[in-house]
């Protein structure tokens, strides 16, 4: 067993809360987020001596994004609920008071994985377009288009809910 790398424990303690939030945004599930974070940290451990000299948080975030993409490709995503519930809701119906956060989380989960990653990194983690491109391993142009499309879909979902609530 390799000895504990110097400074790695402190990094895990200090940065895990922020990284866990990013992991949750990528997965939408608390347990999956913890799993993703721990897996990324475990893969960072052997390279810590090199990683620590640069930007370790960016490295872990990159590992998380790539792991997330491969996990998404392997896993069944469950049934996708239809959007037809709207037709059954009467104006002023109590059930129409849908929590924005639930709507946003659901809309986020429905984004294609690359759009979701671009949106999370760009607008949740506030990374620059170039930084997101480095993490995702794609071009800045692709990041711009993916994040813009993703954000527009989230806006559409929220707007649809607002419209429903105002009826």
């Amino acid at each position: 067993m390799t000895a504990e790398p110097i400074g790695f424990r402190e990094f895990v303690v200090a940065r895990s809360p922020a990284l866990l939030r990013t992991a949750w945004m990528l997965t939408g599930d608390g347990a999956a987020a913890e799993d993703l974070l721990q897996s990324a940290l475990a893969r960072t451990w052997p390279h810590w001596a090199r990683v620590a000299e640069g930007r370790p948080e960016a490295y872990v975030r990159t590992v998380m994004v790539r792991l997330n993409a491969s996990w998404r490709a392997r896993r069944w995503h469950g049934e996708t609920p239809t959007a037809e519930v709207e037709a059954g809701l009467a104006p002023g119906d109590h059930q129409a008071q849908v929590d924005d956060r639930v709507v946003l989380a659901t809309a986020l989960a429905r984004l294609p994985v690359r759009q979701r990653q671009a949106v999370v990194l760009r607008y949740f983690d506030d990374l620059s377009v170039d930084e997101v491109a480095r993490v995702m391993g794609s071009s800045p142009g692709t990041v711009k288009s993916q994040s813009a499309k993703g954000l527009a879909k989230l806006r559409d979902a929220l707007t649809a809910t607002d419209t429903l609530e105002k009826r």
Partner: protein
Amino acid sequence: MNLDQVADRLRQLPPALPQPADRFDRVRRRVRRRQLRLAGASAVGMVAVAAATVGVLAHHSSGGVAIDRGPAATTSRLPAHGPSAPPAPPSPAPPAPATGGPWKVNAHGQTYGIETETGTPDLVAVIATDGRHGYAYATQLEGPRPTSPADALRQEREDPNGYDVPVYESDGTTRIGHFHVG
């Protein structure tokens, strides 16, 4: 609603997430499990290298490839590759103490090698804390089996950071280091 407002709501989306106090230890356990798997893969690679450099490869009638190390040595069989490999004939019931199945057998009759989907050898390939390749007894790697949930909790309390097991050469007696489980 404009896109900036969407981004603002996005930043407020994650719920309060629990932060396990033992996250670092969990990460360390994952690193060890990864190293154990890598040690297994490395052992497979070493068998292949040994076959290419030391052994004499000969196509075996069972469709596998046998590594001939002379009359006194054990024979290790690698799986057949490709569709042209002839089908394996019905194999006789293996004499339990004499064959190691997919693993090699040392002079004491103990199997050694990597864990596979079908089972575990007596001595499991590991990487010792000093980086040396060796083998640890599977029974010691598993540790004492808890007899009840309460017993499992007691073991966890007694060994919160895991435990060390000895690492041996393939003979199962020459100690070369230790491997930390936990």
